[in-house]
């Protein structure tokens, strides 16, 4: 027991130092957590049981998705779906395809290729929203297009994750097909209920005491996640839909009381995921990861370029660069596949890929601001 406490203390101390470094340099802490995880792996890994790690990951992922769902209101989701249909389709085609194709080239199964496609498709809304805010770009004209794409990507995950979860669970074609049908219809029904009747849930959960809000929201979150797992679609998606369902002042409350818990569990989750990766296998995947990162950062650049079509050239470049970062969702998808016993190279490849894009993406976003066109000459001011 003392060993576990010691390990946990050491891990969280490392996370604290890294978070401090990240806050100081203005970088996303996610790549740092992953690096720390790799370091732990190199030092011999953690002494936690597989079940403990799995439990931590389950709760962390549910919380991550729940908080993501909280960020969006129902109207925003439907508005984004309407206005950025073209951009979203382009986004999916341009960014899912390279990962999927890379899986084939590496000789992986179709399912593993689909997982890799998901990893390259989904940008990190967490990293991107923070970078745009830090760079004072939230008011820029290209920003609504960028944010709308992030929304539709996150929403696409509500369909993608259950499909992949069902497929990873295996089984015959018919039972698999049935599971997929059940999963997708459950998600659509839940989404409809969330948008339509979310306010009732909100009313029941609202209370003056922070403690009551924390415990009741957390309880409902875990129950919904469990229900999601029971019905064979992913627990994470249940949490995401619950987040969307909540509205009004409760959103702010839930964010305040659950935010710190999410930060802690997510940080540990990223670290443990990377700690589960054999460091020796990294050199073997570094070339494919690098190539994939370069290709898919360029395709994201193209995506942003197309989505921000109404802006001038610099704005379109900024939008493209902003979308390059991958982060939490890519790790979540990879974790799902690794736990289900996928390809040994998938974990290392995902970690390396996220590391590259999560570092280069924010840097590219920053330097894209230097792209300028010659300003049109102002009308000559007549001197008085």
């Amino acid at each position: 027991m003392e060993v576990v406490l010691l390990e946990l203390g050491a891990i969280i101390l490392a996370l604290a130092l890294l978070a401090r470094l990240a806050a100081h340099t203005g970088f996303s802490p996610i790549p740092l957590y992953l690096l720390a995880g790799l370091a732990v792996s190199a030092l011999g890994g953690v002494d936690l049981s597989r079940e403990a790690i799995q439990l931590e990951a389950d709760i962390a992922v549910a919380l991550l998705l729940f908080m993501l769902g909280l960020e969006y209101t129902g109207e925003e989701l439907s508005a984004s779906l309407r206005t950025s249909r073209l951009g979203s389709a382009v986004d999916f085609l341009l960014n899912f395809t390279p990962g999927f194709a890379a899986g084939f080239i590496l000789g992986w199964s179709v399912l593993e290729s689909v997982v890799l496609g998901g990893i390259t498709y989904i940008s990190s809304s967490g990293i991107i929203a923070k970078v745009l805010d830090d760079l004072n770009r939230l008011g820029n004209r290209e920003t609504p297009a960028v944010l709308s794409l992030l929304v539709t990507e996150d929403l696409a995950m509500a369909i993608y994750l259950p499909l992949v979860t069902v497929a990873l669970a295996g089984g015959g074609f018919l039972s698999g097909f049935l599971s997929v049908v059940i999963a997708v219809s459950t998600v659509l029904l839940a989404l409809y209920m969330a948008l339509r009747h979310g306010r009732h849930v909100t009313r029941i959960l609202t209370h003056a005491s922070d403690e009551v809000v924390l415990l009741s929201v957390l309880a409902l979150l875990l129950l919904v996640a469990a229900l999601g797992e029971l019905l064979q679609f992913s627990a994470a998606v249940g949490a995401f839909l619950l987040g969307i369902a909540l509205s009004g002042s409760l959103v702010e409350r839930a964010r305040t009381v659950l935010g710190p818990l999410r930060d802690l569990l997510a940080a540990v989750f990223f670290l443990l995921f990377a700690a589960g990766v054999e460091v020796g296998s990294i050199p073997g995947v570094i070339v494919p990861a690098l190539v994939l990162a370069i290709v898919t950062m360029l395709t994201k650049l193209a995506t942003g370029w197309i989505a921000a079509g109404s802006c001038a050239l610099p704005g379109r470049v900024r939008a493209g660069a902003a979308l390059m970062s991958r982060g939490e969702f890519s790790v979540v998808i990879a974790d799902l596949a690794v736990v289900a016993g996928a390809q040994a190279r998938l974990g290392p490849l995902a970690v390396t890929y996220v590391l590259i894009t999560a570092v280069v993406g924010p840097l590219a976003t920053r330097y894209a601001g230097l792209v300028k066109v010659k300003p049109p000459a102002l009308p000559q001011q007549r001197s008085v």
Partner: protein
Amino acid sequence: MLPIRETRLPGVGVRFDFTAKGGERVGVIVHRSGRRDVIVCSPQDPDVCQEVMHLDEEEALALVEAMGVSHSTGEIAKLQLALGGLSIDWVEVAKRSHAPGKTVYDVEHVEDVDASIVAVVREGETIASPASTFALQADDTAVLVGTREGVDALTALLTGG
């Protein structure tokens, strides 16, 4: 008023902006958390924000108060215009003063004040330059013109202060 555009920023909040007469895009981002960002974009490149000011809820309210007229309306009622030694003010005739029932001439000559009642507003109607025999009533609004001291003295008389 200039037309204000409203743009949703999913996951962040709402952006309101308009194009100022100088050509620059000016706006406010209302964050879900209550934070407000005031943004100003250069006329050369309206896509990008040149100035961004982050305000928390309290600061935003202070800015609104400073820019709006709500704060000043209270002041206008008590406004004294000073035009080269000449003061103009208006005051309500109080019941508790000795003014109700007295004529304009009486009031102006109770003491030797350097001010005159140039108009009276009674129940929404304006009596411009009332005759010296015009009798004041409580709740009339008297418009006073004179020296600063004269207007103050007359105000004291009419309000009973």
